[in-house]
Structure formats: C-alpha cells, structure tokens
C-alpha cells in the first residue's frame, strides 16, 4: 500500500476549545508519568503521629540515591460549617506540603504553624508544593464506621464518590514562598511538568487510607479491620477545580504548545505505523473494553456533561461495530484508517478518546516525549523588535486565521471579561455589560487584542520595524509578544474567543486536567468541576511492580 500522507493535525483544528475540552487522560498524562518515574524510588512512612480522631502529623517520603522528597501532613478538627471546597475557605480537614529532603523537627514545627493556614501562612524555598483537602464526609465516615465494626465499606457508596478526600488547590512554582521552579528544574526525575504536584496528590491519597485505618482501630481496637487493598486501590483523590486553571494555559503559551505538540506528534507517529503488530492492536482493544466500564460509572448531574457522556457512549458503540471488521494483519496503516474513520463518523469527544487509547501500546513513542513537555519559557520572552510590520502581519494571517474574522463590534463577542478577585486573588470571569470591574480586565482577551493588533498593523507602514510600531502602541505589546511566540510554537494559542458569550470556561479546565490525568469530569457549573485522580493507581508498596495501564483497572 502506498504510504499515506500523514501530517500533524492543524492548530486551527486542534486548538478549538470544543476539541480541547474533549481531551481525555492518556499515557502522556502527568500522574501516569509520575508513577512510571518514581516506581523505582523507595517509599516510606516516616512519621505517623495522629490522635484517636485522626488529627496530628504524618510524614511520607520517596528516596533514591540520597535525594528525598517528603510529604508533611497536618490533620485537624474542623466544624461541619467550616468545611468548604471553595478557594475562599480558611480551614481544611488536612493541609499538606512537599518538603525538599527530610524535614527536621524544627522544619515540621515551622510548617505546622504555616501550612494549615495555606495562603495566609508562609513557606520557604525548602518546600516545593502545597495543598489542602477536605473529607468527603459521607464516604469517610462510612468507611471508618464500617472498618471499626470489622466490615469492609459498601462498594456501591464508594463507587458513587470515588475518594475519601478532595483537594481544593495544589500550589507550586513559587506561590506563597515555595521554591521557584529554576531551583529544581535540572533534576532529571522532575523533567515532566507538574511532577511534584502529582507526587503530593499521590502521597495524600495514601495518607487518607492510613488515616481511616487508624481512626477505625482507635475506635474499636478489637474488632477493627484494615481497608482491603482492592477497595483502597479503586479510590483516588477528588479535586474541585475552578477558574484558576483557565488563565494558566493562556499565560504559559510555550508550555501549552509542548503539551499539545507531544500529543499530536505521538498521534502522527502512531498513524504512520505501516504494519501494526497484532499484540499492540489487542492492547488497544483491551484498554478500550476496560475503559468502557469506567464510562458506565461516570456519574454527573451536569446536563452539559451528561450530553457529552451520552454522545461518547453512542459513538463508542458505533466504533465497536467498526472495530469488529478490522484486522491488523490485513490492513496497512491500520491506525491511520482508524483515525480517519473516527474523524469522519464520530464526534470530537469520542475521537479524542480514541486518540488517547491509541497511545497505550507504544512506550517507545510516548516515553521520549515526556521530557519534552516542560518549557524554558524565559527564552522566548523578548520581542524580536527588529522584525518588520509586514512580518508580524503575515504571522497573524497564518496563525490566527479564524480569530481575525471575529466581529468584535458585536457585543456577544466581548460579553465576558477576566479579572482577579480582591478577596482571594483568584481568576474570575464576569459579564462585561452587567458587572463592574472590566476596567481592571486581565490580559486574557487574546482574540480581541490580536484582532486589534492586526487592524493597526494593516494601517501601518509595512516596512517599519516592530520597534517603531511599539513606540506608539504600548497597549498591544502583550499580543505582539504572543504572536511572535506562536510563529515558533503553533499550538501555543487557543483558537477561540475567550471572552465571547458562548465561552464554556470548563473546556479550558478540562484541557489542563486531561493532561494531569484526571478522570470522571463532573462539572458543577460552567465554571468549576470535580474530578478524580489516581483512581485505580497502584498503592505505594505496589508501585515497583505496577503496570502503566492501571488507569483502566478501576472497578468503580
């Protein structure tokens, strides 16, 4: 068979919010690459000093060749009325910090005074990531009560919840005094993005299991039993994610490019395989079968998500029929056939689901890409101001084709604005024409500002330099920088209007969360959602022998 012409998918297609909001976890996801990287490290519970109610301090660590990372946990009593997943909360059931190395007693005392306060406290460059979490009270109490009377918890109830604790934010990279990324960026084990955030969440998960076992035992030392590992393994850590994540992907264009580019490169390489090995095809089919079970238990009250899940289920049944007649031995470029068929017959949600699954058999393609998913953003900050106005105009025409066609005189195109809330310094989005504050708008209206830049460039002398253009156009400097970045990094820009009336902010969150490796997206509004991380993941003592496709082993 003649080799088909297989290219990277165009940014104009991939970078649409509806497409990005249909992404799913994959072998590239950060929590999976974290487990692959750290499975050879030594896990230890260094301290477990909790009272009968489960309040106190615990320390967990990973160590290898003299380097260690320690999670310090502080659990406290809070009243039911104080428990809130909102970022504006001031108290949490537990607070966590990942310390670089082994914390001394002095460090732990210092952290105890600060970590439970989160944003109000201060940490130091010796700390790497910070988080807090609340119990899922119905699941937590049920598990403790069951274990204390010698019974395992009701799996049906746990299936509905999926975790014992929900984190409400995970901070890193210099926030609240944490170490700046540059201090640690050359450590090979953390080349992949968000690796230390992933480590924190993973160790928090183990803390939740140890905590329920401990409380149950204190409650009834004679009868209490330990939580069965099969049940624990199928519990993850929940997370409530709000708009804070959305500006991140706009503010880190080269990083965004690297994530998407690696995904696209993997897809291209897989589609370009001429003879697909039967075993590899079976791995794909097996993961697909198992994952279908997960979709069936994906519960949400959100009509938006229900529609997405229904469409996914419907499309998957079509896909299963198509697969029945497909044989890897008879078809050259099998993955390309599969992909092209999916694009023609299925909706984006299912196409991207299949794209994720297509990566499963291919460690050799995926593994080299993992280390390319970080970015040295500083390198691309300077504007090449000696370039000509005509150059920049051409860059915009090539890379923002659909953006410059948007009519921003139409109020629907500018209905929203992004701002930082005064009380919690968190990003928010509001209606420009109904709410106050648009004069303090954040520079996240990229589409509108690019269009404005384009119109000004068009009227300008094409031979003049960008330096000359910027002399009288300071207000466009931020998008001039972006346009030159997109020239080198074509997947760095969302190809949609992030302030339009039809904006669904959770599409932006879902993009980032899929790269984290989150599952069970459960939107609670168009502005925040709940997810689950590490459901089905090996327990720490099982990591060394674990297989990477654990994500499909979840029973819940």
């Amino acid at each position, binding site marked *: 068979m003649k080799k088909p012409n297989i290219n990277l998918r165009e940014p104009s297609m991939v970078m649409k919010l509806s497409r990005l909001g249909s992404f799913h976890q994959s072998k590239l996801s950060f929590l999976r690459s974290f487990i692959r990287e750290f499975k050879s490290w030594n896990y230890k519970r260094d301290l477990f000093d909790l009272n009968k109610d489960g309040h106190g301090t615990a320390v967990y660590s990973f160590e290898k060749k003299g380097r260690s990372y320690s999670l310090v946990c502080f659990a406290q009593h809070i009243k039911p009325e104080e428990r809130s997943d909102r970022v504006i909360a001031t108290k949490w059931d537990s607070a966590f910090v990942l310390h670089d190395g082994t914390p001394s007693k002095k460090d732990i005392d210092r952290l105890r005074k600060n970590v439970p306060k989160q944003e109000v406290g201060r940490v*130091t*460059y010796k700390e790497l990531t910070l988080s807090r979490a609340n119990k899922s009270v119905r699941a937590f109490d049920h598990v403790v009560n069951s274990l204390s009377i010698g019974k395992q918890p009701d799996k049906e109830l746990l299936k509905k919840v999926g975790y014992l604790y929900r984190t409400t934010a995970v901070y890193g*990279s*210099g*926030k*609240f*005094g*944490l*170490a*700046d*990324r*540059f201090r640690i960026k050359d450590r090979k084990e953390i080349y992949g993005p968000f690796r230390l955030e992933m480590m924190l969440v993973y160790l928090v998960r183990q803390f939740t299991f140890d905590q329920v076992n401990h409380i149950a035992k204190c409650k009834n030392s004679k009868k209490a039993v330990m939580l069965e590992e099969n049940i624990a393994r199928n519990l993850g850590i929940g997370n409530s994610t709000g708009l804070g994540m959305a500006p991140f992907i706009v503010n880190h264009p080269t990083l965004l490019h690297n994530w998407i580019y690696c995904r696209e490169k993997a897809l291209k390489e897989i589609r370009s395989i001429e003879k697909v090995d039967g075993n590899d095809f079976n791995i794909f089919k097996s993961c697909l079968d198992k994952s279908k079970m997960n979709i069936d238990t994906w519960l949400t009250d959100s009509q938006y998500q229900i529609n997405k899940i229904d469409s996914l289920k419907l499309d998957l049944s079509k896909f299963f029929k198509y697969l029945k007649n497909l044989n890897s031995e008879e078809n050259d470029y099998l993955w390309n056939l599969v992909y092209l068929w999916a694009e023609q017959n299925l909706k984006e949600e299912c196409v991207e689901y299949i794209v994720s699954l297509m990566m499963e058999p291919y460690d050799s393609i995926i593994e080299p890409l993992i280390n390319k998913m970080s970015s040295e953003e*500083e390198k691309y*900050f*300077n*504007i090449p*101001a*000696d370039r000509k106005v005509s150059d920049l105009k051409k860059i915009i025409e090539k890379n923002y084709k659909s953006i410059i066609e948007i009519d921003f005189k139409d109020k629907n195109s500018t209905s929203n604005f992004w701002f*930082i809330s005064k009380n919690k310094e968190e990003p928010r989005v509001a209606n420009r024409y109904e709410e106050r504050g648009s004069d303090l708008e954040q*520079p996240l209206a990229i589409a509108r500002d690019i269009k404005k830049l384009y119109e000004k460039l068009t009227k300008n002398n094409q031979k003049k330099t*960008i*330096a000359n253009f*910027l*002399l009288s156009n*300071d*207000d*466009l*400097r*931020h*998008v*001039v*920088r972006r346009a030159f970045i997109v020239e080198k990094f074509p997947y760095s820009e969302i190809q949609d209007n992030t302030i339009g009336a039809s904006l669904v902010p959770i599409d932006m969150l879902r993009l980032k969360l899929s790269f984290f490796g989150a599952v069970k997206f459960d939107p609670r509004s168009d502005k925040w959602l709940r997810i689950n991380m590490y459901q089905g993941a090996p327990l720490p003592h099982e990591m060394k022998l674990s297989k990477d496709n654990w994500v499909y082993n979840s029973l819940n």
Partner: protein
Amino acid sequence: MQSFSEIDTTSKRASKAAGFAWGVAEEVGKNMRNLEMFGLPGVKNLNLYLKKIKKTPSEKPKKIEKKNKPQSKEFCPIYCGTVFLDNCKRLESLKLIKFFNVSYPLLFLPFLSRASDIIGKKISVKYEKNNFLLNFDKTIFSNNINNSKIISKAKEISIEFLENNNLFSIKEWKELYRLSEETFVEETDSSKKKGAGAGLTDND
C-alpha cells in the same frame, strides 16, 4: 522570603495598576525578578517609582540618539528601557549613548542587561558614581553592590557597548597554552596513519 515568581507577578500587577500597559508591565515583572536575583534592590526602587508617577508621570523617549534629554523634567526608566531594548541592535552602532535626567535609573538596568544578551556584547553603565558591568544578562557587576542608598534621579547615564575583546595579553595566552600542551601525547607513526582522512586520496 518572597519567591522570585511572587516578585514577578506582584511587580507586573503593580505596574499595570500604576498605568503601564500589560505588555510593559510584563517586562517590569521579569526585570524585577532579574534585579532581585542579581542582588540589586529592584522591588525597593520600583515601589518608590510607582508611587511617584501616580502623582507625576514621567516621559517616554520618542526615539533614542547619542544624547537624549527629556522635554519635561524626567525620563521614565521603564519606557527608556523598553525603547532601548526594542532598538538595541540599531543602537549598538552608536557605541556610547547618554541619557539625562532619568528617574530611578536602577529600573533601566535590567532592560540594558537583556540588551547585552540580545546583541552579544557586554555593556558598561555609569551614573552618579555607580558603575555596572552587564554580562549578557547572566550577571551584573557593580562597584557598590552593598550600597542601599536609593538614587531617585540620575542626572546623566552613560551606556557604552563594549567590544568583545580579550581581557589578557597574547603573551599571557601563549604561556597558558604552553602549559596546556603538557597534557598532549606524542603520536606514533602508526597512529598517524589511522587518523581521520589518512590513507585516502583527497582528490576523489
């Protein structure tokens, strides 16, 4: 201690609040991170300058020549910086450039440091008995780095692009080279015959 990331973000937001466009504020954020990293009091200077311009905004240069004097009282160090940075490749040919009456001149410095990196030449900066040597945005050497005295205005800033010259004589280099030769091993005739390109005609 504040992280550099916090310094960047807060400086950016404060600059925007003081009236700079977002793109310019982004430059300031990055610059404050650099200044503080180099051990220079960026945040202190920025804080004072932003307070000052809330009352009286200072001037942006329309273009940069060998000698630059503000039409009003003072030049803005941030606008001087953005214009200098954007035009640095052209300005290199001027060799020595002077600015007169610049507010909080330390805030001009990180732009010049970045220009040094872009053009690949060291830059010497002098004002009010302060000398700085900017090394490709990797380091800044100063003659009084511990001086916490804030200079709110430089009557004259002199900026010189330094040619990429050796800081040692040929004699010193030769002496060092001779010493380095003591790590070399005399080749045998047989190994000479096996070296790259040996034994083949080069006229093929």
